[in-house]
């Protein structure tokens, strides 16, 4: 056990609210946890040293920090700074069928099952979040409600700040919602940001997780989805890396005929690490999953991708595909990828593929032969590799806003 974890356990015993019994259970589990080292499979390539060395001064919680509004998106922005909700929910005019409460203010039990049941058990930092997250939101969409306005959650971390938030989202039957989870920070800070989603029957969720932490901002978080019958998830993740950035995305087909699409883009520079673990659980027949992750790694950065598909015994007629493609730009960078299949049903169609490569010479030559300088051709081709996934984002306003940021990001990266 590390000192850091001991401190977490000490602090957790002071937390007292309506989630008490759940927190107690997680706390007991946390006490049993061993601090992961490289021999623990889930942390094989990612070191927790940056977290252990992190100096958190405890910043001024009330700071107003400016953040980018996205023109034309017309989103409902809910802003957290260092784990404290800054937006006054009472001032928000919510569309009919949408209910949003602060986790700390909820006094009924309707959020408790979301809080406790969706996140996979195995998760060390999920447990940390269980015991420390006092702020967060419970977002509920009524049956049949179609919410056009995207809900955007912006979580900012400042120097020395620490943020533990939990977002719980429940989509009623045949409802529709768009959620954008955005996290940012550069200075030494820590955030554990977890979100749990339950998609009711025939519900549709459009989901974006923009994990734009950089430099010294440590982030350990995840988004977890439970899909009920015929629900549809369309999820897109964009990540930079930081000293330590780890996300776990879990999708559970809990009822049949659900459809999940999950795309991920990671663009890493300098000495950053980004570690994405995705797990798709097909528990029931007739589920479909399409997963595509693409990453570009420059400088001394390190990418870790672990994409697991688990087809349970009863999940006949599952269609599941996972594809992970990587470009390594630098001799000092590294890519570690592991697409995993665990299959216990025979009448399924499952495939995965993973590649690590460089830009094809023939494509480069083709562009150069049209008069484009090599360096520019490289940028174009590299960006094209990512662009394909950006283009698949249904929200074009957001897609274009991201594209500008990704291009900026790309210019900072070392392209040989």
């Amino acid at each position, binding site marked *: 056990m590390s000192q850091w974890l001991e401190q977490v356990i000490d602090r957790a015993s002071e937390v007292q609210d309506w989630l008490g019994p759940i927190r107690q259970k997680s706390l007991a589990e946390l006490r049993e946890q061993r601090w992961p080292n490289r021999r623990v499979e889930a942390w094989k*390539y990612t070191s927790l040293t940056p977290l252990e060395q992190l100096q958190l001064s405890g910043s001024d919680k009330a700071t107003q920090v400016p953040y980018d509004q996205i023109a034309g998106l017309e989103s409902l922005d809910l802003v957290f700074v260092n784990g404290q909700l800054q937006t006054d929910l009472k001032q928000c005019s919510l569309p009919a069928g949408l209910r949003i409460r602060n986790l700390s203010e909820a006094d009924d039990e309707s959020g408790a099952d979301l809080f406790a049941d969706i996140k996979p058990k195995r998760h060390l930092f999920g447990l940390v979040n269980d015991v420390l997250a006092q702020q967060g939101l419970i977002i509920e969409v009524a049956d049949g409600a179609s919410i056009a306005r995207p809900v955007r959650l912006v979580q900012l971390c400042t120097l020395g700040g620490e943020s533990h938030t939990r977002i719980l989202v429940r989509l009623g039957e045949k409802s529709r919602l768009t959620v954008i989870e955005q996290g940012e920070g550069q200075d030494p800070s820590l955030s554990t940001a977890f979100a749990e989603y339950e998609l009711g029957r025939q519900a549709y969720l459009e989901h974006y997780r923009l994990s734009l932490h950089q430099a010294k901002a440590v982030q350990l978080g995840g988004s977890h989805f439970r899909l009920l019958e015929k629900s549809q998830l369309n999820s897109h993740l964009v990540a930079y890396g930081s000293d330590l950035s780890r996300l776990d995305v879990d999708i559970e087909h809990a009822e049949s005929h659900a459809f999940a699409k999950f795309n991920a883009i990671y663009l890493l520079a300098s000495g950053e690490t980004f570690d994405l673990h995705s797990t798709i659980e097909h528990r029931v027949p007739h589920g479909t999953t399409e997963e595509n992750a693409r990453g570009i790694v420059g400088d001394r950065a390190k990418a870790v991708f672990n994409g697991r598909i688990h087809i349970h015994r009863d999940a006949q007629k599952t269609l599941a595909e996972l594809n992970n493609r990587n470009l390594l730009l630098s001799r*000092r960078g590294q890519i570690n990828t*592991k697409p995993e299949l665990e299959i216990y049903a025979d*009448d*399924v169609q499952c*495939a995965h*593929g*993973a590649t*690590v490569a460089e830009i094809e010479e023939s494509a480069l030559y083709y562009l150069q032969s049209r008069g484009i300088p090599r360096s520019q051709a490289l940028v174009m081709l590299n960006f094209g590799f990512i662009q394909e996934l950006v283009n698949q984002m249904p929200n074009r306003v957001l897609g274009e806003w991201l594209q500008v940021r990704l291009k900026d990001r790309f210019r900072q990266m070392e392209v040989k």
Partner: protein
Amino acid sequence: MSEQIEQALARKYEAGFVSNIESETFAVGLDEEVIRRISTMKNEPEWMLQWRLKAYESWLKMEEPEWAHLHYPKIDYQSISYYSAPKSMKDKPKSLDEVDPELLRTYEKLGIPLHEQQMLAGVAVDAVFDSVSVVTTFREKLEEAGVIFCPISEAVHKYPELVKKYLGTVVPRSDNYFAALNSAVFTDGSFVYIPKGVRCPMELSTYFRINEQNTGQFERTLIVADEGSHVSYLEGCTAPQRDENQLHAAVVELVAMDNAKIKYSTVQNWYPGDEEGKGGIYNFVTKRGICHNNAHISWTQVETGSAITWKYPSCVLKGDNSVGEFYSVALTRGRQQADTGTKMIHLGKNTKSTIISKGISAGRSNNAYRGLVQMGPNSDGARNFTQCDSLLIGDQCGAHTFPYIESRNPSAIVEHEATTSKVSDEQLFLCQQRGLDAEKAVSMIVNGFCKEVFKELPMEFAVEAGKLLEISLEGSVG
């Protein structure tokens, strides 16, 4: 339809008989004294004993690995006997005529006649029975070409310089738990040395047989192909049908010097246990080869036996332009569990590797591919291609794929693909409509699925592998 396939898969284990041979077997248990006694039995020089004891020392400090997708009760290393040899072998027979006829009959029954005149011309055999090598055929003929092919226990005496120079260089004593155990207690195995520029005039092969109860088999094979030489080596294994599990922990080391080529083929048919998972061999094997410049190592394996298979024949592609290949068919049924694959470690420039893995799971078995492809910082221009296909037969089995890819070189290219399929009703129907019975149809479809691997086997073995798969798929349909 799937019932038909299940039936077609019900199989007999044909090598399950026990030979009635009087053996000298150590009492169960492992300590330093046992290692000293093994060394004494083999009349080993002091350096060999010291090597073993160092391995034992590291083994004591290690923990049995648990990362594989395998479930089995903890092995009690104190309930295993670490040495067993036919009594008749005590005074080394000088020729085949002096070998106990019961031993020869055993191999004959397994389809491996040891009388040279009866053998397939072109295959030399080292027959290892429990802890000792019984006989090595065609030695004179090989010696004419300068090729050394003998039991490793003999090589320790006759070629100590070669053994000292290479033993443990590819798989170090403390490489992993099972390799360390093997290094401490290995009893026999084969030693091969192919001199510079020599193309070995015949296929070399070792046939391993476990006979005695409660014994473990710990053989060690070392093959050194000197510059520009070529060798093709085959390995086969069987064991009697017994209710207890038996441990087999082997180590194989291959050294391919500049421009050398080693082709290593295995048909593994250890007793797999019965339908309910009773008995069967626990097969924990470390196989690794090192390739120097322009060298080429090719592993081909057909794994149909063992209750537990834990095996990852690997290549360290150290030299520039070296090539590593891994072709594997693993068939599991009943309650068998296999966790097998390969490691391709690309260190040199323009190194290339190919991995073709075909896993077939039936019954209540679990079959996992586990592989590592590593592109080192200096592996400029390196290439890997991996194809992992799984075939599931029935809905009670599992097929798993765990490929690790680690790249540290921007000009290296790794491609991995995995698919899963089943024997479809349509395929069975087409075959049956053309007059084939379900059994034949399944065996044909499975053989087709494995074709890319079978074509890599040497001719003599390809026939055996095909037959083995057919026996494995033989049943009571029609």
